[in-house]
């Protein structure tokens, strides 16, 4: 297995995944990124750091997360067997905590007492506020004012945890603008502040570092799947916004050529309507938020407004390693609409007794589509990246109810 992994060693020293990734930031941030890359290089191999991270995973997050056979849903579909990697059972309700613990531990070792984060749906903000509370750090979370309206309960959770939620009024007032604002804060307060990016995007070393912290998801699956099914899955399916949960489960599987990796983007109202967030499916390469990747942009190179029912997928870019996996053909990328995701959401609730996050529901929607076309002996592993408690108001509103 180590031999197989040795064949894939991206990114290069400057953060490139083929033509993607890199460090595209103003000079004010270059030194901070160098400092971060050096610190990460030092601690990623440090046995004490790794031991502490594993201890946090076990006792604070509740890892390893189980794998669950969605037997009833698989039976109803009549094709391949669907399994869930239960990241929804993590503390704080999603995979985001895996990464925030890793970065907060790094911040502590670098002597930074203040952490900042951007958030869309609020899951990464909650995960950052959580670890900041646990480590006694000051925490500021940037969130677009549109998202604050959509995700009131997560805003309240962050405040309960002692974080300051800073409303972002610029641009489209969503996740991308929150990221801009967090970058500006970092450039201004770089001496005492650590920026905890929540996804596998941003300038190097973030895409690599966030991937590494999230790779625990796939690493566990590689151990767990043979125990449950006698072998590795035929398909690994995960939703992709920025792409951290997908990269976390994909990356350890890259050296297994027999395992198909499928990322599922948010098609919103439908790719053809232009109201979606499917950067890999419908975007073109460009430079945003410190890296080169696929972007949703107009012919002038302006980033366009995106749409998805799930705030966590509502992002016009995507992690550069996904761009590379797409071009290289190692992973393929599909999409699911708002309606398809909602249908999968309801089915999962009723057939499996699990309320999935709307983000993860996109992966479920595609998995259900795929399962129907495959024979019963095939195995699909879906990363159930988060739970849907936060989405109650959105789903209720769609159903004409108020909660």
């Amino acid at each position, binding site marked *: 297995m180590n031999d197989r992994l040795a064949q894939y060693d991206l990114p290069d020293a*400057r953060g490139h995944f083929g033509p993607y990734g*890199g*460090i*595209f*930031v*103003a*000079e*004010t941030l*270059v*030194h*901070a990124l*160098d400092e971060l890359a050096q610190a990460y290089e030092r601690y990623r191999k440090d046995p004490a750091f790794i031991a502490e991270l594993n201890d946090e995973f076990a006792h604070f997050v509740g890892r390893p997360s189980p794998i669950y056979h969605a037997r009833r849903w698989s039976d109803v579909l009549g094709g391949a067997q669907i399994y869930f990697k239960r990241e929804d059972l993590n503390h704080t309700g999603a995979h985001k905590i895996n990464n925030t613990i890793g970065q907060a531990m790094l911040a502590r070792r670098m002597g930074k007492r203040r952490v900042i984060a951007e958030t869309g749906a609020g899951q990464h903000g909650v995960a950052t506020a959580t670890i900041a509370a646990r480590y006694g750090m000051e925490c500021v979370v940037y969130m677009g004012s549109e998202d604050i309206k959509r995700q009131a309960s997560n805003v309240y959770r962050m405040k309960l945890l002692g974080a300051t939620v800073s409303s972002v009024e*610029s*641009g489209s007032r969503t996740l*991308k*603008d929150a990221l*801009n604002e967090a*970058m*500006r804060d970092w*450039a*201004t*307060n*770089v*001496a005492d502040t650590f920026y905890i990016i929540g996804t596998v995007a941003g300038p190097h070393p973030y895409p690599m570092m966030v991937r590494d912290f999230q790779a625990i998801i796939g690493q566990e699956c590689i151990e767990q799947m043979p125990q449950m099914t006698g072998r590795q899955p035929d398909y690994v399916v995960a939703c992709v916004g920025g792409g951290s949960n997908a990269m976390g489960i994909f990356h350890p599987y890259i050296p297994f050529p027999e395992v198909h990796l499928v990322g599922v983007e948010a098609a919103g109202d439908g790719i053809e309507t232009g109201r979606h967030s499917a950067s890999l499916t419908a975007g073109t*390469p*460009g*430079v*945003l*938020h*410190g890296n080169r990747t696929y*972007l949703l*942009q107009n*012919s*002038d*190179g*302006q*980033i*366009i407004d995106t749409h998805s029912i799930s705030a966590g997928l509502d992002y016009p870019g995507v992690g550069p390693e996904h761009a590379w996996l797409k071009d290289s053909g190692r992973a393929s990328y599909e999409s699911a609409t708002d309606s398809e995701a909602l249908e999968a959401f309801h089915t999962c609730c009723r057939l499996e007794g699990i309320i999935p996050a709307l983000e993860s529901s996109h992966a479920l929607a595609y998995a259900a589509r795929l399962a129907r076309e495959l024979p019963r002996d095939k195995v699909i592993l879906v990363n159930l990246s988060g739970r849907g408690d936060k989405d109650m108001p959105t789903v209720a509103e769609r159903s004409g109810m108020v909660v």
Partner: protein
Amino acid sequence: MSRITAVFERLRAAERKALIPYVTAGDPDLGTSLDILRAMVAAGADILEIGVPFSDPMADGPVIQRAGERALKNGVGLADVLSLVERFRQTDPDTAIVLMGYANPIEAMGRDRFIAAAARAGVDGLIVVDYPPEESVDFAAAVRAAGLDLIFLLAPTSTRARIEQVAGLASGYIYYVSLAGVTGAGHLDLDDVLHHLEVIRELTDIPVGVGFGIRDGATARSICTIADAAIIGSRIIQEVEADPVHAAARVGHFLSEVRAAMDQPATNAA
């Protein structure tokens, strides 16, 4: 010799410093932008920095962000900015022009196509905020080949090795960002700027302009006791924002005062 280098040579001979104002193209509209550019020249500007609107201006503070948003609402893109330069050039062959913006609009147009179009329109230099030197080697060569200057930013956090790297690629002038943060932030610390400029000057002969935090004639004057140029952005946008209809006159008036302060004989300095 590039137009920018010529400006600095001429000023050095006259023992004067360069005044470099910035304005976002298309705020409040392209016609007013042209008037503002002309008013800036009339007020004594030596080099004009024209901001290219971008939807995600990560390195800009709220004032320049708002200017960009207003311009984008008018549908102003990179091609419009180039047309603006072309129109300006029809009546002003001498003042140096620098476009300042972000990488993505350039890449959307195509790097080579953009460089050729910029040279044709009469642009003299480029600042691409999110193209650091290690991502710009090919771009820098193409820009140079077209006879344009590529201007890089240096910051208080830039290391010696970094300054050397930038010095190897930069031409025209170096834009020293006087403080950690975004455009329009705080006020600057002269001693700190002096210290960093000494290090930069040890490593390169390229003129150094200082920006971020210059708000009036007095700060421009003191910065020019140590720098080759004072760069003023957010403070000018505030004039535009305060009264878009009379933007050109207001900007001209403000810059005349700055110019006068910069040109005051040294003996009169406090």
